[in-house]
């Protein structure tokens, strides 16, 4: 789009212009067609109107054919363009930030910059070619070279791609004529000068080699006639020099650089148009830190010289104010741009503020009926000038300004009054004013010249230092305007400056980090920037409050971004307060909210700390402070400093989910111990058979045995068979004697008094509250546990009932319940281990009713059981929190549980009689149910609540 426009401007011959136009038109139309296709297709596919806004924006600046989400959103495009206007290279970090800011990919940002860059380069090349081609045209036509120049210089000034309209409009207004009076070839010049005039530009434009450039510049140096030099300037010779300068800089042609700087020194640059000046300023500024000190010094010297020069001219201009308002103004702008450039390394915001200000101006122009030549923008530019003048100063200002910002708001609220006020501004200067201005200027100059001799190598802050007073001076120095405004707005000068400042605070959109004009000379393009525009729309002082007001309207995209992010971030507390006060409602006690009881939102029910503190507060006196000043900077230290603990002992919590099997096993064991703990209250301690891992291993090795144990009817199993089976197991399990030894040792350990209550208070508390963890049900392991948990109520109920022999009739129902349990393969695997060792217990328990003679056999088994239980325990203690506390009780209670089971077994006949068909298969199923119950009993420990409840019922 912008390329399109620019090229129209550039087109110098009718043919090329038409050609360009046509090709662009074709492209444009094809793009529109494509867009339509895409939109229609998307509409059809999704049935939703595809983001029309975004598509439109995309169509204007981005290739179509990407997916909509890949398109840069208009905001991002605007922002990118704004950034691009400042710098054409972007660092990785910046691109990342931008991408984060707008939700686009880093690649998109990079792509944007690359394409923009190539586009600009192409245009520059094109335009340069055209300049060469249409050299004669340019010389004849006043406007054209200006235009060309504006777009022509390569390196220092990337095309400002946001607002190509800006330049076209400004130039279109014809104000340029006033800005730079058409100085044709001066009439009274010598022949050599005439020759120079006639040939220099064609030569300049053609010259590609550095040696040729050197020759040409030497020629320029020979010209002493000021009028010729001015003519040279006005024709844009400076821009060519600037181009050379940047080329030489990049090629490191130091001798050329030096010469160019000399030429620039030689030229009466104060006569140059601000556009040209700003271009060259940037280039020269870029050389300030050139490696070779000679060049950098010279560049600095030049800059300071110009600064001085413009100050002088500025002051001079005051004298013939009436005639040269515009000139003085352009000087101001120039100075401003000097300041900008010199301050730019630390003030990206200001640069942007200019570009934004410009966009604002453009809108003003478009909306206002026509350019008014009120000539009041001097103050505006001074403000900006002040802004950009000195980094450190600027920072200070900004801080101060934060506090003062409400003033801006106030101004923003009454744009009307301000507007009225400004109408009186163009009052002609009184002689008195002029006199004052002159005096002030002289004073300032003397100050400057005193400061100037300072070695310019000290850096820009030194150079800029005179700028600050200058800025102030010039602010005061357009007295009729400034004073008037001060009067009409009834605010001190500072606050009139402030709105612009306020505006600049908006800028941090791109943040100091986002846009760092590392490449100084590339930083600004004030050519078609505000400097070019301000002459046109005079009353920019009026605009400022309007801007402030418009921050709230997100109508202009680049600003809406800035206002959205920047303003809010940096909102001063006063502004905030003001905002708040406006919206604040009267306080009333907010209604309470009842939480659903079922949610069981906790409120420190198990907290000991609250009690401790309550007690402590009863002992201590409350400390109150009478005033803010009496509040100590630090609170009182603790009564006693505690010893540092050994952090190496801090238990490490695994951050990975344990694999399923390993989780099941300890959980079961933990559960078992917990149920045991629960049962311990009713049991007396006895030597206990514990689940036996060795036996388990033996059983696993002999599947036949398992089958024998589980398939046959327990009561039908002959005692002798049983003995045989157990012998088999015993032989399979070696070293029973050693395990019994170990058992003795373990016993000792187990009988140590436990330092904590046998049951974890937290645990039992939880259980009693009956809250079941909703989460455990959801996880994979949890499913199994939870599912068994649901049956467990039945199981445990049944178990306790049989234990107490109270209501044996319930047993069958319990069975049927467990039988209905659907067994998945996974569950069976999970239950494998518990099942197995419960088989074993089962077997042990069988012996009791069946044969008392097998007692001798049982004994070693029991020993084995406890023996291995110790090893098991040690295994558990690695990952178990409570392992040491409950062991004793656990082992003791184990007995009860099995006793209970044996009782249950003895009541088994009742069950058998109840069962109608006593088939082995059916029996096996029942057995399984039994086993399930047994294993479920393990789980039941998570719910001691149930155990206890049922028992006492």
């Amino acid at each position, binding site marked *: 789009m912008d390329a399109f426009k620019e090229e129209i401007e550039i087109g110098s011959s009718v043919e090329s212009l038409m050609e360009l136009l046509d090709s662009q038109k074709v492209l444009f139309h094809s793009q529109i067609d494509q867009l339509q296709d895409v939109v229609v297709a998307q509409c059809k596919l999704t049935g939703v109107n595809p983001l029309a806004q975004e598509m439109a924006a995309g169509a204007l600046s981005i290739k179509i054919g990407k997916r909509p989400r890949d398109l840069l959103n208009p905001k991002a495009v605007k922002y990118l363009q704004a950034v691009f206007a400042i710098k054409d290279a972007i660092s990785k970090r910046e691109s990342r930030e931008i991408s984060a*800011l707008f939700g686009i990919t880093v690649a998109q940002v990079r792509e944007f910059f690359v394409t923009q860059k190539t586009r600009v380069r192409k245009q520059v090349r094109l335009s340069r070619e055209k300049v060469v081609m249409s050299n004669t045209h340019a010389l004849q036509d006043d406007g054209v070279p200006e235009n060309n120049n504006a777009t022509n210089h390569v390196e220092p000034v990337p095309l400002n791609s946001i607002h190509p309209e800006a330049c076209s409009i400004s130039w279109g207004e014809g104000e340029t004529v006033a800005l730079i009076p058409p100085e044709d070839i001066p009439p009274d010049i010598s022949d050599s000068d005439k020759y120079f005039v006639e040939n220099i530009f064609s030569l300049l434009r053609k010259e590609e080699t550095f040696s040729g450039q050197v020759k040409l510049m030497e020629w320029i140096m020979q010209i002493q006639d000021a009028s010729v030099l001015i003519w040279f300037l006005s024709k844009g010779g400076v821009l060519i020099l600037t181009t050379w300068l940047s080329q030489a800089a990049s090629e490191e042609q130091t001798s050329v650089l030096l010469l160019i700087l000399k030429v620039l020194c030689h030229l009466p640059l104060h006569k140059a148009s601000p556009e040209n000046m700003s271009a060259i300023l940037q280039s020269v500024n870029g050389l300030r830190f050139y490696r070779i000190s000679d060049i950098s010094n010279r560049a600095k010297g030049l800059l300071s010289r110009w600064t001085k020069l413009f100050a002088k001219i500025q002051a001079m201009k005051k004298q013939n104010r009436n005639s040269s308002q515009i000139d003085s103004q352009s000087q101001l702008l120039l100075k401003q741009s000097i300041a900008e450039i010199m301050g730019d390394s630390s003030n990206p915001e200001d640069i942007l503020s200019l570009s934004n200000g410009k966009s604002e101006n453009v809108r003003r122009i478009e909306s206002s009926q026509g350019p008014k030549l009120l000539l009041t923008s001097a103050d505006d530019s001074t403000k900006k000038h002040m802004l950009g003048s000195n980094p450190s100063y600027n920072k200070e200002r900004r801080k101060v300004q934060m506090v003062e910002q409400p003033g801006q708001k106030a101004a923003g609220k009454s744009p009307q009054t301000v507007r009225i006020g400004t109408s009186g501004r163009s009052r002609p200067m009184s002689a008195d004013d002029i006199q004052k201005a002159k005096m002030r200027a002289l004073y300032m100059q003397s100050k400057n010249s005193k400061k100037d001799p300072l070695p310019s190598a000290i850096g820009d802050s030194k150079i800029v230092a005179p700028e600050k007073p200058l800025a102030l001076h010039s602010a005061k120095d357009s007295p009729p305007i400034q004073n008037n405004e001060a009067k009409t707005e009834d605010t001190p000068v500072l606050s009139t400056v402030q709105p612009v400042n306020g505006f600049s605070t908006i800028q941090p959109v791109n943040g100091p980090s986002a846009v760092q004009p590392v490449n100084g000379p590339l930083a600004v393009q004030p050519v078609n920037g505000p400097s070019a525009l301000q002459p046109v729309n005079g009353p920019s002082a009026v605009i400022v409050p309007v801007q402030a007001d418009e921050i709230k309207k997100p109508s202009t995209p680049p600003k809406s971004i800035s206002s*959205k992010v920047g303003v809010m971030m940096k909102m001063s507390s006063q502004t905030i307060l003001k905002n708040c006060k406006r919206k604040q*409602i009267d306080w*009333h006690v907010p209604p309470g909210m009842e939480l659903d009881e079922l949610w069981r939102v906790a409120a420190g029910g198990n907290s000991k700390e*609250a009690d401790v503190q309550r007690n402590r507060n009863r002992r201590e006196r409350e400390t109150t402070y009478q005033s803010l000043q009496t509040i100590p900077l630090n609170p009182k230290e603790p*009564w006693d400093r505690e010893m540092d603990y050994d952090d190496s002992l801090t238990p490490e919590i695994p951050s990975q989910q344990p694999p399923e099997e390993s989780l099941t096993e300890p959980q079961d064991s933990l559960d078992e111990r917990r149920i045991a703990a629960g049962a311990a209250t009713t049991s007396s301690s006895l030597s206990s058979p514990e689940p036996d891992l060795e036996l388990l291993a033996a059983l696993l090795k002999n599947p036949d045995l398992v089958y024998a144990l589980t398939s046959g009817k327990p009561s039908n199993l002959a005692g002798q068979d049983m003995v045989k089976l157990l012998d088999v197991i015993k032989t399979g399990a070696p070293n029973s004697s050693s395990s019994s030894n170990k058992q003795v040792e373990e016993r000792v350990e187990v009988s140590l008094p436990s330092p904590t209550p046998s049951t974890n208070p937290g645990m039992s508390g939880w259980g009693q509250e009956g809250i079941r*963890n*909703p989460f455990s049900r959801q996880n994979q392991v*949890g499913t199994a546990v939870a599912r068994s948990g649901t049956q467990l109520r039945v199981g445990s109920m049944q178990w306790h009932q049989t234990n107490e022999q109270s209501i044996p009739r319930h047993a069958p129902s319990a069975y049927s319940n467990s039988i209905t349990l659907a067994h998945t393969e996974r569950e069976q695997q999970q239950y494998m281990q518990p099942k197995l060792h419960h088989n074993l217990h089962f077997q042990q328990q069988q012996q009791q009713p069946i044969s008392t003679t097998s007692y001798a056999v049982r004994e070693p088994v029991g020993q084995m059981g406890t023996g291995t239980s110790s090893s098991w325990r040690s295994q558990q203690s690695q990952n178990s929190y409570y392992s040491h506390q409950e062991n004793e009780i656990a082992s003791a209670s184990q007995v009860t549980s099995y006793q209970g089971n044996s009782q249950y077994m003895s009541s088994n006949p009742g069950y058998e009689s109840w069962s109608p068909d006593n088939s082995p298969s059916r029996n096996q199923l029942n057995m399984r149910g039994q086993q399930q119950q047994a294993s479920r009993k393990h789980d039941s420990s998570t719910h001691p609540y149930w155990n206890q409840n049922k028992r006492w019922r």
Partner: protein
Amino acid sequence: MSLTELDDGLVRRMAMGAVFSDFGGKIHSVGFHRTDDLLVTSSEDDSLRLFDIANAKQLKITYHKKHGTDRVCFTHHPSSLICSSRYNLESTGESLRYLSMYDNRILRYFKGHKDRVVSLCMSPINDSFMSGSLDRSVRLWDLRVNACQGILHLRGRPAVAYDQQGLVFAIAMEGGAVKLFDSRCYDKGPFDTFLVGGDTAEVNDIKFSNDGKSMLLTTTNNNIYVLDAYRGEKKCGFSLEPSQGTPIEATFTPDGKYVLSGSGDGTLHAWNIENPSEVARWENNIGVVSCLKWAPRRAMFVAASTVLTFWIPNDGESPAPADPPTDQQQ
């Protein structure tokens, strides 16, 4: 009068009822007491301030220049706090302090974290609490002893939260993984892991809703996700304006039906999460809201940036109700 749940109208009617602006800088964090009408704030001026949220009064202020104040939360006692430190972490190691506002005394130091604590959560049920630090570890503590009860090493910035029942805690880790631990047997490791697909940004903040059904994740790139707390499915997600370094906060309402959040552009938003839709949007009043919490037992919330604001339902139809949500895409 007390409510059991909120409705769209009430949420939309929320308006600023009180403003406290004398904070000397940004407010780092705010915390409500679970049952009492109390709020504590920590701010850049190293102060801790206690507020009465029923009457919108500042009750107390204390300074902590030596350690600084960062994350802060109430314990179960109404004048005791846990606060994390910003200064002298290396020299003292006193990254967490247990404080009493009653007599302005430090009760205990909890040493262990080598870097700033960025996430702090008190168990709703007992005396344990949890802290996640930039040293890429999460530590579990008990208020009554200074020794660390457990440590968990991660590979990124952690965010921690207990559920409102105190049964489960969640730790957000690198890569958008949220691990759930049983708070009674956390030593076994997480029992479940959720992955927030597609977003690998670091999680700033996790919250559980009161009903335990939902979980709220806020990421560093200002995306908000509401997850099903049981299954980890993403119920809805909201993307907000970036806020460049200032983390935003989102909060559930006590009934778990709405989610409120700040945004990089300074606006506040409210969504209904049962049938995901934006319910209300408040224009920027105080800048980017870095702290936003709804009171646990009141129809009020606090929003803080450099000032602290209390929001209450506007019963009279006087000034500036929330703008009805526009179709404009944020």
